[in-house]
């Protein structure tokens, strides 16, 4: 692995303006969907973006793809700043980043044959010449994701959810992208099919050296595929760590609550676990986020400081960073070590 990360995001902010009233169009305020998120992604690595609805995980993915306007911050790919690319200059970038969607039913054009769906990136970016080479490449992709070649003339509605997701993955692979953004790629699938797709994604990564940004709400799914995990809450990163460190030693109270909320499919293990019902309430509206630490109204460890001062993301142990006052270092001087560089 090289030292320069493949993808680097610095202090990303995505704010959406809300419609105001007719007379005062600017009165609507804005939603801070993503508010100062920094992370990096190495080649061949999988970073999990985890959080509940409204935490900004999908918006972060969209911003990285440059599909949603970036309010502030920088996005670098291979050292190149892509934050302000426009129009035609975006085209090469579109080839380098591809997306796998949550809804296997909506993500495929119902009027197109599988052959045309999977091959579309090839056509758009003129990656192959000639009909024969095109067909050959599509069939190769289909085989790669476990679809039979004679399915290529069919339409999406003739496939089950899992097979459609395979088609979506083949399409994402067609352009040989550097980064694939997976937006909840298995959450709409049945359990038995979920496992097939997770394994497929892992195998493809091994075989082709793919890099994934894996957006998901389910920490259990993320555990099986991600090298590092970033937990988000209301547009902020609350914790980021290597997968193993995060699951064995979750530090942020939100991460802990999130984990205790996920049941384990084993009654014996369940009876040993302490279900922590102390996390009360729901995610507040991002239109009107709480002051200080966004999590403090639901946090059982919250102190007076938490409601006033927003904590910053700090490294506690190697590669493990938390944004919480509980882990504030003793002196201010030490605390100035910004974690953004390692996160």
């Amino acid at each position, binding site marked *: 692995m090289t030292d320069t990360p493949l993808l680097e995001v610095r202090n990303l902010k995505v704010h959406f303006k809300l419609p105001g009233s007719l007379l005062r169009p600017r009165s609507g305020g804005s939603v801070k969907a993503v508010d100062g998120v920094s992370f990096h992604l190495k080649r061949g690595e999988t970073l999990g973006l985890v959080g509940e609805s409204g935490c900004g995980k999908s918006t972060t993915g969209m911003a990285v793809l440059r599909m949603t306007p970036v309010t502030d911050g920088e996005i670098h790919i291979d050292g190149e700043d892509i934050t302000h690319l426009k129009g035609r200059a975006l085209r090469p970038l579109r080839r380098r980043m591809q997306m796998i969607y949550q809804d296997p039913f909506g993500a495929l054009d119902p009027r197109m044959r599988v052959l045309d769906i999977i091959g579309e990136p090839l056509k758009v970016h003129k990656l192959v010449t000639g009909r024969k080479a095109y067909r050959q490449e599509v069939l190769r992709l289909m085989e790669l994701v476990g679809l039979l070649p004679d399915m290529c003339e069919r339409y999406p509605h003739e496939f089950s959810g899992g*097979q459609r997701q395979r088609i979506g993955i083949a399409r994402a692979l067609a352009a040989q992208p550097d980064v694939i953004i997976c937006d909840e790629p298995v959450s709409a699938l049945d359990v038995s099919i979920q*496992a097939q797709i997770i394994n497929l994604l892992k195998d493809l990564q091994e075989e082709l050296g793919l890099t994934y940004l894996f957006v998901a709400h389910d920490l*259990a799914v993320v555990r099986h595929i991600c090298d590092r995990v970033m937990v988000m809450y209301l547009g902020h990163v609350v914790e980021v760590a290597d997968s193993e460190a995060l699951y064995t030693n979750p530090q942020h109270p939100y991460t802990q609550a999130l984990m205790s909320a996920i*049941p384990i499919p*084993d009654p*014996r293990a369940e009876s040993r676990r302490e279900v922590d019902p102390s996390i009360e309430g729901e995610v507040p509206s991002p239109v009107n986020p709480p002051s200080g630490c966004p999590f403090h109204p639901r946090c059982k460890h919250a102190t007076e400081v938490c409601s006033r001062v927003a904590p910053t993301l700090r490294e506690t142990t190697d590669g493990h960073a938390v944004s919480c006052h509980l882990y504030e270092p003793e002196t201010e001087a030490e605390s100035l070590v910004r974690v953004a560089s390692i996160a």
Partner: protein
Amino acid sequence: MKDAVANQPANTPGETMQKDPVGGLLQVEHLRTVFRQGRREVKAVDGISFSVNPGETLAIVGESGSGKSMTAMSLLRLIPSPPGEIIDGDVFFGGRNLLDMSEDELRDVRGNEIAMIFQEPMTSLNPVLTVRQQLAEPMRVHRKVKEEDIEARCLDLLRQVRIPDPETRLDAYPHQFSGGMRQRVMIAMALACEPRLLIADEPTTALDVTVQAQILELLKDLTRQHGSSMILITHDLGVVARYADRINVMYAGRIVESGTAREIFEQPRHPYTLGLINSMPRLDASEKARLLPIEGQPPDLGNLPTGCAFHPRCPFAVDQCRQQDPPLEPYQGHHLKACWVNVDD
């Protein structure tokens, strides 16, 4: 279809059924529901029998198309008809057969003795009525609660489902609540008449994980408090492991395995159950552990294979599985399985 019903072997009561004449609150026998699309007939629920004891939580687990929701809908005859039709079976509830009742009699049971909670808290509440109006409805209809008592009763219900500040929330409209709060209102409505049986159809699927935990804990506490039974329909094995006493695993309209939560998770005896458990992502897995998926695609209900419906995906399948449909038979005590093969760990 008539032939199929007549052919029912090995299912005479007493042979395979441990009928508990006093214990069973709900007794379902040979329930069969089909959907018709032109000449195609889809067996949504294909001759299943089970019972629910007082005070217990029975989970019905299955993937999409397994017939778990259709089972619940059939119990209260809520199947859209046409195209759906309950073509066979009995549903005994407190000694009466729900499938033989008139619409009027049934209406008296629905929402009163058996209440349902649906997946979609957004669409299950009427957007133009306040919470007070919707909560009061079942009380007026079923319990003839006096008008002056209704407010107190409503407030009590909202407190039970732990909605903060119930006095002001009582006159709010559904859109003023968040998803989790709406589901709490749904639960309050379901509990309004203190039902003996609660049917919760994927009650938390649309909610965030932390909210899901809150709602399920609430359901557990409330059913325990009231001593009511619950049928919990879900696809999530984790939820089942945490909240269910007994489990029915369904596949392609059939119950393939039935037993206590411990039995199902620790000694799964049907290859499908085993496959489900192995393919479930786990929070306590070792790092990046590989999942063991069930290969193949879910079955097409209108076109099921011969023999056991699971055999094309089953790693243990033998010739018999391709030809004959296995009956649900006791494996050990009340642990039942529908499989020709003996699956050992």
